[in-house]
């Protein structure tokens, strides 16, 4: 007679199907559970199926993405700079600092031009937002925000208000009063609410709507008067650092760039992501449309700037050099789109020939990182803001 080992089995209601059956004592995520053998088998199959489903979906998604890259590459019959060989090279540029705006007590993080082509608003790490007449270098208004690191600011199209925000996760609008003695902070209006820092904000063609991007990975469109959220834009998988509205009278799109290395184009009406580009090797710090609205440029921490065309649906140019190893923080086009001004974390500004892909000038002057670069509305100058607490107007 051989030894027999008997397994002690409990008999009782199954935790899953409640029927009285012999139960198997198993552990699920360190918790003991009592399932009948049928339910155990079902669970195992579901888990397997789910794992399989997720894996199959992943594989499908990846193969579609690869196919998309193939399709995009098929139409790549020539390089932009090759076609650009037939146009004349640009001459020597004499670009100098024409105005230096001193007054911020800490790093300048953002600036925007007024439509009158001479006023600007700038914001800094110490919470100060200043409105200047850049032409005379006079300060016209100053507001102290209740938070530090005011990373975003924008001028309203009418010139009668400014919006700003940062670590407070909000975007607030301040109407600009002609009365210098009036306390601007008292009239402040909180418009946008995000769940992480505000990285960028922009008025649409009206004082009544603001588009924001945030460290919470979303962009949003807000009604200024009521503070109501009109549309939100989900699709980035990490902080969104920058956005820019398409320069069109008829279109309703904007582009955003973020820490997920993606640049996404959005339909403002539906909230849908209509196009996406992912070729950068690190965070995209800045996005700007080419003046025709058919393309846009990006500046990234991978030390390159790139041009993406919406009709070709791909990256069409890279602006880089071996000697540029610090990230590009901010980019903007000249009026015709021929020049791309890019501010870098190595304190310099590089000027690129957009079509030929070459660098036409390197501008020194700032004594710390360049955090923001913006061309004036009529293209007569561009302004740069830096961690050296100053802003410079170049022409």
């Amino acid at each position: 007679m051989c030894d027999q080992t008997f397994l002690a089995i409990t008999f009782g209601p199954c935790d899953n199907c409640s029927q009285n059956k012999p139960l198997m004592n198993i552990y699920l995520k360190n918790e003991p559970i009592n399932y009948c053998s049928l339910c155990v088998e079902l669970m195992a199959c579901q888990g397997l199926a789910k794992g399989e489903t997720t894996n199959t979906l992943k594989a499908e998604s990846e193969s579609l993405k690869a196919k998309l890259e193939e399709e995009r590459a098929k139409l790549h019959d020539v390089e932009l700079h090759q076609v650009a060989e037939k146009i004349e090279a640009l001459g020597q540029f004499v670009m100098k600092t024409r105005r230096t705006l001193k007054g911020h007590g800490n790093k300048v993080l953002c600036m925007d031009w007024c439509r009158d082509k001479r006023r600007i608003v700038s914001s800094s790490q110490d919470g100060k937002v200043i409105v200047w007449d850049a032409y005379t270098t006079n300060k016209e208004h100053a507001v102290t925000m209740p938070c530090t690191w005011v990373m975003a600011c924008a001028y309203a199209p009418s010139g009668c208000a400014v919006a700003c925000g940062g670590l407070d996760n909000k975007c607030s609008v301040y109407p600009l009063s002609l009365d210098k003695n009036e306390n601007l902070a008292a009239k402040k209006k909180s418009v946008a609410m995000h769940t992480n820092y505000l990285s960028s904000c922009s008025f649409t063609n009206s004082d009544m709507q603001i588009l924001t991007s945030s460290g919470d990975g979303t962009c949003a469109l807000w009604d200024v008067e009521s503070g109501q959220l009109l549309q939100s834009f989900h699709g980035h998988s990490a902080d969104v650092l920058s956005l820019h509205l398409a320069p069109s009278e008829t279109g309703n799109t904007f582009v955003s760039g973020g820490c997920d290395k993606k640049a996404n184009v959005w339909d403002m009406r539906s909230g849908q992501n209509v196009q996406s580009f992912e070729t950068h090797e690190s965070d995209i710090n800045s996005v700007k449309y080419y003046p025709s609205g058919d393309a846009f440029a990006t500046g990234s921490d991978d030390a390159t700037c790139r041009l993406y065309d919406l009709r070709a649906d791909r990256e069409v140019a890279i602006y880089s050099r071996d000697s540029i190893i610090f990230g590009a923080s901010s980019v903007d086009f000249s009026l015709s789109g021929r020049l791309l001004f890019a501010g870098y974390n190595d304190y310099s500004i590089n000027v690129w020939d957009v079509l030929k892909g070459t660098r036409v000038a390197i501008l020194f002057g700032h004594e710390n990182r360049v955090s923001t670069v913006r061309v004036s509305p009529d293209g007569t100058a561009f302004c740069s803001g830096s961690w050296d607490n100053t802003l410079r107007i170049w022409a």
Partner: protein
Amino acid sequence: MYDKGAARGVYIHWSSCFAEFWLVLECTMAKNNSLHPNSNGETDDSPNMLVYRKMEDVIARMQDEKNGIPIRTVKSFLSKIPSVFSGSDIVQWLLKNLCIEDQVEALHLGTLMAAHGYFFPISDHVLTLKDDGTFYRFQTPYFWPSNCWEPENTDYAVYLCKRTMQNKARLELADYEAESLARLQRAFARKWEFIFMQAEAQAKVDKKRDKIERKILDSQERAFWDVHRPVPGCVNTTEVDIKKSSRMKNPQKTRKSVYGLQNDIRSHSPTHTPAPEAKQPTEEELQEQIKFWQAQLDRHRLKMSKVAESLLSYTEQYSDYDPFLCTPDPSNPWISDDTTFWEMEASKEPGQTRVRRWGFGINEVLKDPVGREQFLKFLESEFSSENLRFWLAVQELKKRPIREVPTRVQEIWEEFLASGAPSAINVDSKSYDKTTQNIKDPGRYAFQDAQEHIYKLMKSDSYSRFIRSSAYQELLQAKKKKSKNLF
């Protein structure tokens, strides 16, 4: 003394353990830091690390035996200056090896690398590069910024205190260092005895070391503090962008203590720190992704050659209007300090160049308020202005606060689309039906379809007539007329 170790840059590996510290002489290449793949094969790709890695690649090339910068020991009076190279050596090397055309640019890049502490002038606290015979030395990888140093003030206090115990004139505290020491003495008054003990212990160990070694170590240690406690007025290159800092602050990687004063929680090298687990996408998210890629695949794409031509012609067309390419007439206000250019733009009388621009496309007319006015005037003369007025009204609607939208939608409907409307416009039946539906729940985009249809109509019909009209042509030729009624 010219030994192989010196030629390759002697890296003295520092380790610390509480009150004692010893050093291990090691000829390391740049492997002992957090930039190279960890045990999982993953590299730290955060933005700061990316830049450090690039600088370290350049440093590695600079230290290459064959193609790098020659490092030598220089005899000076009664002593030797070990392991140095000159500022000009660096500039020349950068010009040659990094395809830099300009000496200014080479100097700029070199200064940045010095400011981050990868090499330093041996006789100056200010970390800058000079294109002359000034001597520089490489920093030991132990002190590289990629090791995520965040040294505490207690360490700085130990360091400054230790310096006061040394007799050499060249090691005397600079003014700003003396001030810092005084401040720290007040701040750490309670534990100063402990700090003093540490400093003494360190000084003792230092004294035991070989003279040449000591020179090198002292300078490297000083350079480390020059990065983390820079001379007032100098840029602190350890400052980070707050948006990126949260990704850098991996508590397991950050090194806080130089002299072992606190429990350094790191028990293993940063190269073996596992990367945080990436979030796995859910089934739903994957379904969304698939839908997105499918929609993208269906997109109609243009050939690169066509796109390039289009970009070229747009830029060509507008180059006359680009102040950076073509000097504005009479001058650029920022350069000449004369605002005539702006005054002209603001006037209601449009100049020739401005009028010419309207001819580039309907968008240019619609963008320019004076253009819009002229276009409207022309259409009124033809009794066909309702299309443009409708388009303008819808644009304006989109700019209103959301509260005013429903009323405005009703008004526009009544004026342009309702039966018997005073300014009836002609839209295709599809758009008309859609709009009828939309106004039941009026939103900013209620007239979107109708507006698009009208825009196409204007573009192909009214706009081309406007450009061919005598009114426009006369403006273009800048014919001066006294009377305002040209039509």
